[in-house]
Structure formats: C-alpha cells, structure tokens
C-alpha cells in the first residue's frame, strides 16, 4: 500500500483492491462506507471543536483579550472540556413541543452538513464523491439545513425560536441566490461543475487570478452571501442573542444543542472550503506562470497542507467579519441582498461571459 502525500489516488485504489481480494463486494462496500463515515465523524468532531477554540481565541484577540487560557496549554483543551460538559447535561424537552420534529431537527441539520462535506476535495484522490454536478449538489444540500432550522424553531413552542427560524428562512432563501449566482460566474470560467475538474483547471493559475475583476467580485459576493448562509455575524439575526436569546435553538440542551453548534461551525468550514475550491485553487499549490523554481518549491508543500492553509485563511476572514461588523437589521439584510448583491451579481455574470468569450483571461 503505497503512501504518497501528494497523490492519494493510488492509496485508496490499493485499499479497495485489497479489500476486494479478502471480502465479498457487498462486504467491501460496507467496510469502505464505515471507514469513510468514521473518518468524517472524527473530522467533524475534532475540527469542529478546534474551530470553536479558534473562534474564541480570534474573537479575544480582536477585542484585545486573551481568550481561554486555563485548560491545557493556552487553553487548548477548553473546548474539549466544554464538550464533555455538554454531553453530561440533561436533555430537557419543554412542555408543548412537537416531540418528533423537535428531536428530528438537529439530525436534519447534521445530515445536511455531512452531505455537503461528501464532495469536498481535500487533496488529489481524497474526495469521497466526485459528481459531475458537484457545485450544484453542494448548493442544493446546503439548503437542506434551513429546513432543520425551520423545524427546530417551529416545533420548540417558543416565540423566540419561531421568530429566529423565520428570519433564518427569509435570509437563507435570499442569499442562496447570491451564492449560486456567484458560483455560476465561476462555472462559466471553469467550464465544468465537477469539483475535481474545477480544481484541475487551476493548475496554472487560481481562478481568482485567472478571472481577475469578475472573479474577484464573485469572490467577495460569495464570502458575504456564504457568511449569511451560515447564519454567522453580522448576519446572525436568526440567533441574535440580545433579542431572541438564541433564536431557533433556545430550547435545546445538551448534545442536541451541541449538534446545532457543531453544525454551525462545520458549515463555516464548508463555505470556506467551497470558496477555496472554486476561487483559490482548492488543494493546488500557488503557481505563477513562468517562475519555474518558485513553482517547484510550492509543489513541494503537500496538497493537504495547502488546502487547510487556504481554508484557514478564509475562515479567519469570515471571523474577522463577525467580530468587526455590527448585526444587520432584517430590512437591511434584505436590502443588501436584493438591491445590491443580486444586481451586481447579474452584471458580473455578464462581465464574466464577455471575459470568457473574448478570452480576456490569463
């Protein structure tokens, strides 16, 4: 079983072959599914916890504080301690809730998150599913999450939850448009919706450089709309601690609350990963046209490292937004989307088509 940190295709293929030798095809499928499932579970749990820690630290730094410092070195184990605490909390079901829906909602959100994760290319050959409509698939399944939010708010029998869920619905419905349209802009440039092809297409120049002005505009719009999609500040009026206590997950406790919490952070990761895949070259190293030696040095850094570096950068940007800007009002949110982002986006698509038609790109 050859292990190559630059290309995982061989490794996964060899694993598949050796499984096939020892087991029936059905067993192989089951074993492979289990392995992948466990990997994703571990990744979501650990990376989600890390993101919570990172968020607290970054937030503290922006506010000239230090953040968690006591549990572990520089507070590294803080979120793990918090998570254990959450696991041991009593699961309270308030009076008058719709029991079935109330218990279902956290799972719907988690499932949506898992499904979106499935197509992300982490490195060459490290992609679970490679649909030829990958981009479309991600935008489609990521909007399943809002159903979970709506159900959670509706079934909680709490006015704040309901208001939060409704706001979230209105917001995600509007911003879904901007996300999709900015992705469409890039699909025009890439000429494919398959994520692996999109990444492959950025071997020489990342799309944000290749598509210059329209790509940059699309990137900014995607970041703004993506932040709104994940219900993060400054678009967090679905949770709005100061008005709605915690919005749609007010009534949840213990592990169910942890589900919402983790899903929110993993969704942020998914938005960042999509931004990286479509705009910033995915796991491709940074290449400049003719600088041979520079390109060679960049090739030396493994794709996984590249991927997570870029994702980290985008996540940092999203956190920067959250801890800088005040929360928008409902009408401001809708104005921003319908009066600004959407028209700019449509013009931008036109611009990108012109650029592609006239081959005015790198």
């Amino acid at each position: 079983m050859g292990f190559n940190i630059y290309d995982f295709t061989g490794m996964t293929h060899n694993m598949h072959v050796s499984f096939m030798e020892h087991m029936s095809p059905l067993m192989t499928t089951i074993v492979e599914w289990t392995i992948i499932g466990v990997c994703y579970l571990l990744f979501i749990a650990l990376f989600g916890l890390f993101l919570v820690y990172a968020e607290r630290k970054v937030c503290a730094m922006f506010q000239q504080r230090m953040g968690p410092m006591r549990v572990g070195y520089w507070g590294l184990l803080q979120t793990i301690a918090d998570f254990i605490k959450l696991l041991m909390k009593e699961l309270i079901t308030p009076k008058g809730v719709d029991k079935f829906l109330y218990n279902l909602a956290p799972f719907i959100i988690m499932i949506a998150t898992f499904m979106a994760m499935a197509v992300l290319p982490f490195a060459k050959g490290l992609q679970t599913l490679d649909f030829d409509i990958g981009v479309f698939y991600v935008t489609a399944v990521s909007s399943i999450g809002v159903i979970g939010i709506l159900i959670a708010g509706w079934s909680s029998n709490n006015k704040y939850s309901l208001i939060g869920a409704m706001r979230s619905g209105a917001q995600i419905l509007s911003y879904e448009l901007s996300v999709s349209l900015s992705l469409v802009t890039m699909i025009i440039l890439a000429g494919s919706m398959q994520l692996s092809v999109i990444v492959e297409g950025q071997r020489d120049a990342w799309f944000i450089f290749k598509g210059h002005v329209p790509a940059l505009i699309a990137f900014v719009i995607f970041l703004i709309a993506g932040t709104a999609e994940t219900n993060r500040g400054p678009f967090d009026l679905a949770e709005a601690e100061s008005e709605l206590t915690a919005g749609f997950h007010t009534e949840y406790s213990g592990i169910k609350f942890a589900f919402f919490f983790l899903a929110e952070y993993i969704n942020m990761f998914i938005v960042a990963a999509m931004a990286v895949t479509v705009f910033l070259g995915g796991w491709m190293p940074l290449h400049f046209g003719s600088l041979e030696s520079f390109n060679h040095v960049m090739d030396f850094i493994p794709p996984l490292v590249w991927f997570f570096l870029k994702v980290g950068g985008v996540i940092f940007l999203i956190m920067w937004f959250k801890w800088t800007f005040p929360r928008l009002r409902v009408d401001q949110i809708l104005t921003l989307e319908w009066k600004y982002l959407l028209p700019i986006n449509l013009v931008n698509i036109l611009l990108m088509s012109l650029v592609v038609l006239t081959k005015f790109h790198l």
Partner: protein
Amino acid sequence: MNGLFEYIKTVFKGVGTLLTGMKITGSYFFRPWKHVTQQYPENRETLKMFDRFRGEVIMPHNENNEHLCTGCGICELNCPNGSIEIISMSVLTEDGKKKRAIDKHIYHLGMCTFCNLCVKACPTGAIIMGQEFEHAVWDRTKLTKVLNLPGSKIAQGVKE
C-alpha cells in the same frame, strides 16, 4: 444615469467604510502585546492597580499615628447602604472645652459597593480608596473593620 452613478457611489462608499472597520479590529489582532487582559495569579508579584481603582475604604495615618477624621459622621450619612458606622466621643481640649472626636470608624467591607460617595463627602479628606483587592476571608466578621487605628488621634490643625 445620475441614479446609477449614485448607486455605484454607495457601493464603493459602503465597501470603504467596512474596510475601515476591519482595519481597526485588524490592528488590534496583529498587535497582541497591546492586550489589556491580566493573567492574575501568575503576575501577582508585579501587578500594580491603576490609580483610580477602588479596592476598599481606608483611613491613612501619619507617622505619629494621627489621622484627619473629626468624627463628624458625614460619611455615614452619605453611604447609600449603611456600610459605615461612626461612634464618636467627646474629649476635653487644653482650654477645657468639650469637643467631639472619633472613637470608632466602623467600616463594613462586606456591604460596601465601592461607590466612592463617602470619600467624596468627607470634609477633611480623612478617608480614601485603597488599592488592596484580595479581600477573601473565611469568616465574614473579619470584613468589619475599624478604620482609625487604636490609640490614634486627630492631627493638629484640622478644621471642622
């Protein structure tokens, strides 16, 4: 056409103001040595509280064990929650006159809200805010203090 121009101007202005905000928070983020948080028990030796910090009410005494308190009771009247009790006595001055003086200036630290009103009200400036803040004790009777030291008397020349 004019409307379109205005529209584009608002977009750029909006982006500009957002970037200004991000510049400010970014300048905080990238200068971690400016952080204001103190790591308290670790820096206990070097920790210096700032001047306006209100730790507790104290009554300073000079080297002759003299203070400035006349026992007028104004601080007691001004305390919103009754944290101060003034027990005064009368003493005979040299020329045979009776005069009021402080016997016990009782201060209940456990009730004090550190509002600073007593310090503001004191006509002679006999009490000030101290910087000590480690007030934890096992027995709350220890939080009731007598601020004038035993055997102390009022300094010469303090006008009522």
